[in-house]
């Protein structure tokens, strides 16, 4: 079987398994939410309303149905692409997700770019003079970013740049005095499309702190990974062979070693961005970034079952899709990969 056919077979298998995986995840979420104490009626009415009113609201929200009926309805709707309605405000879950997802993607992509920039720069400095002072500092930086609690560093950065220096806004996605441009929901792209420089500037300013903080925290993974991979690759036979052929050191690093050293970085970047879309909660909370993770947290607090289920399904689908895409990309770049 040639490589293209085996790759195709692998892709089809992964694609075929994806719905099964999503079904397992969504069923687990459905079940866990119902097992958790409290339901949306308790979240909406709190410790008020008599039992008749509570029951009426329960019927209105469809929570009086037997669990199996609720589950079958949910799966049936899911198969038809319907994520249901939020119990909190009766709005379509798909619409709510469509409004918040661009904010999360914008933050995730910007954070990864910053993380790559810092991570590769720090990793490179280590490679330039292995075991030197800068290398040691880079390694400490890498370990430090793992260890820093995200909420703590986010608050410190917020206090420094927003409160003490006053350079950047405290939170949100856009200045309150500006109107969010209509379009895709990606404010940066929409403002570029509209040629609205004021909105673009404001949205970039609002993005710097959350993306910078997240990028800084993630950069350690990239710097450490690059450093370790580079070291390994520079000691391989083919690099030694290249050196013995008299190829310049810079050319060896950039044309022979770097592509191989970047492969694991690509995998990490892909998986990180996928998880960031649903998981940058502490950063979103600290910087009041209206993303999906924040929506998920609020939905859990409100016991908004369809909303939680919808977000989990969307994030899971993104993780599955991105990881498949990364696998295929690596297979295309690296001919040594076999499936």
């Amino acid at each position, binding site marked *: 079987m040639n490589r293209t056919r085996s790759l195709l077979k692998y892709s089809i298998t992964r694609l075929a398994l994806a719905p099964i995986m999503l079904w397992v995840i969504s069923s687990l979420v459905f079940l866990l939410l119902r097992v958790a104490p*409290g339901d949306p009626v308790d979240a909406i009415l709190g410790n008020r309303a008599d039992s008749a009113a509570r029951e009426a609201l329960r019927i209105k929200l469809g929570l009086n149905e037997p669990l199996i009926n609720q589950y079958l309805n949910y799966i049936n709707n899911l198969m038809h692409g319907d994520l249901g309605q939020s119990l909190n405000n009766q709005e379509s879950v798909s619409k709510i997700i469509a409004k918040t997802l661009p904010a999360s993607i914008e933050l995730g992509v910007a954070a990864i770019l910053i993380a790559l920039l810092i991570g590769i720069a720090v990793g490179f400095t280590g490679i330039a003079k292995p075991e030197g002072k800068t290398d040691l500092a880079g390694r400490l930086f890498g370990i430090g970013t793992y260890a820093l609690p995200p909420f703590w560093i986010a608050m410190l950065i917020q206090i420094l740049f927003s409160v003490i220096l006053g350079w950047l806004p405290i939170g949100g996605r856009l200045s309150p005095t500006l109107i969010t441009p209509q379009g895709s929901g990606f404010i940066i792209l929409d403002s570029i499309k509209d040629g609205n420089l004021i909105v673009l500037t404001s949205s970039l300013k609002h993005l710097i702190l959350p993306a910078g903080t997240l990028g800084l925290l993630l950069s350690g993974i990239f710097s450490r990974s690059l450093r370790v991979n580079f070291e390994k690759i520079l000691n391989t036979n083919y690099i030694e062979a290249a050196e013995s052929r008299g190829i310049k050191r810079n050319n060896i690093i950039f044309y022979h070693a770097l592509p191989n050293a970047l492969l694991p970085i690509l995998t990490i970047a892909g998986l990180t961005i996928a998880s960031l879309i649903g998981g940058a909660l502490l950063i979103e909370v600290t910087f009041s970034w209206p993303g999906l993770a924040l929506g998920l947290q609020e939905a859990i607090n409100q016991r908004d079952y369809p909303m939680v289920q919808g977000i989990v399904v969307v994030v899971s689908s993104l993780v599955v899709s991105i990881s498949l895409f990364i696998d295929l990309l690596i297979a295309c770049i690296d001919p040594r990969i076999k499936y």
Partner: protein
Amino acid sequence: MKLINLFLEITLKFITLALLFSQTSCTQQKSNNLITIASKGKIESLDPAQANKLLSIQLISALGDTLYRVDSNGKLEPRLAKERPKLSNDGKTISIPLRENVFFHDGTHFDSSAMSFSIKRFKEIGTLNYIINDRIIDIETPEKFLLLIKLSRPSSSINGLLTSINLTPISPSYYSEYKDKFLNNNIISTGPYKLENYSPERISLKPFEKYWDQKALNSGINYINLNTSSSLFSAIKTSQIDILLSNSIEDGHRLSLNKSSQKGLLKEGKGPAMQIGYIAFRTNSELLNKQKIRQALSYSLDRELISKQVSYGLRSPLRSLTPPILQINSTHQWPKYNPKIARKLFKETGYCNNKLLSIPLTFRSNVPSDKLLALTWQEQIKRDLSDCLEISLNGVESTTVYKQLSDGIYEAVILEWTGDYPDPYAYLSPLLDCKKIKNNICEEGEAVIGGTFWGNQELQDSLDKSELLVGDERLNELRKVETIAAKGLPIIPVWNLNPRAWAQPNLTQPKFDGSGRLRLDKITNNNEQN
């Protein structure tokens, strides 16, 4: 190595450029002269029928009017109603003459059919429709500007109910497609502002040119949501926002802002306290079924100390179940802190002298002030009554607490209450009402839902009677209810919390109405006012 250096150089230049870009002043662009207000929480809906959160209620109050409003002295003030409601002889019909020449934001006229449409819609789909469903049976519109409300039973507390934001009239023509569903992202009502822009995190309001009463004093309002107390605090301190509403701000930040306002760096406005914090006892439990023990616990609570430790004195100690603005009691009914009497009562019930009463106290783990209250009371008991009483703490998430209250799981639990409308009945009934009482134990009613399981026939009779009376007679009956509850002690009130708002010094002082809502239309720049 040159290439590596080049890469590093580019990276450094990028970071420098980013910093330079960020330094081009982050001061908010206030080109549109709108006042920016921040608070914690998303506005998930602007539909009056859906509103059940303080923030939604606050914004809807600026976008719409109600039939009546409670003024800052606690008196009922007609708004869309022309005069005070008139009650029929049998007490079952209320007639309300309505104001003429009032317009909705879509240009249509407000009249009795619009009011009827709005009340019926709330009855049909409202999230909190239980507050009227058992009382209002029908709405009639005999004249264009006369509304008749038919009641199932005489109910004097209905006056307060008519101030409820949930009964804000909406334009029937605009809502024709939303008779049986919510319209979350828009509102067409009669208020001093109309909606300019909506997203759950950011809302813009512009003054309504055809407003029937005094027009808004400012050019408009921007509302933004900031998620953490520290973000809100920092935003007002660095002038990134004009006004901060205190709904969810931490007590430490509240104190610091209070001090800033005393120094003249900010202007503080304080509204009437509508929220009360209390401890509910499960009176059918083996531990707390003795009135003397509940009395002893009540005497053991040092409200002043707790308020000082938890909120730096910004929460007012409370020994009544109704907020002070509702003015039903000039004297406090619940026992005042007195450890000597507490010890005496514990001894009389067989405790102290090497026998320790152990009470499990539950608090809502997601409410920081509850946890601090619980911890402070625990420590205070260790100081005062360590040989008689021991309090063990148990933090449970609020939604779970609400679910399990009526299951009788919690011996003692810290809760809070805000009446659905500003009337003593909206506090006393939900906390004490009981439909079925047997041996002072409530088997069915609000007391079961509230987790106290306490019933008292005399109290119940007074509570029911109060609904048939008006004026001082009604107040006397409600006072009697409080007196009986203060003796039975199913609940210990702890404190009440005044809503506060802080404004930048260039703005006028924030003002609240009698329902604890910030008057957005009264905020203006000092210079504009002059």
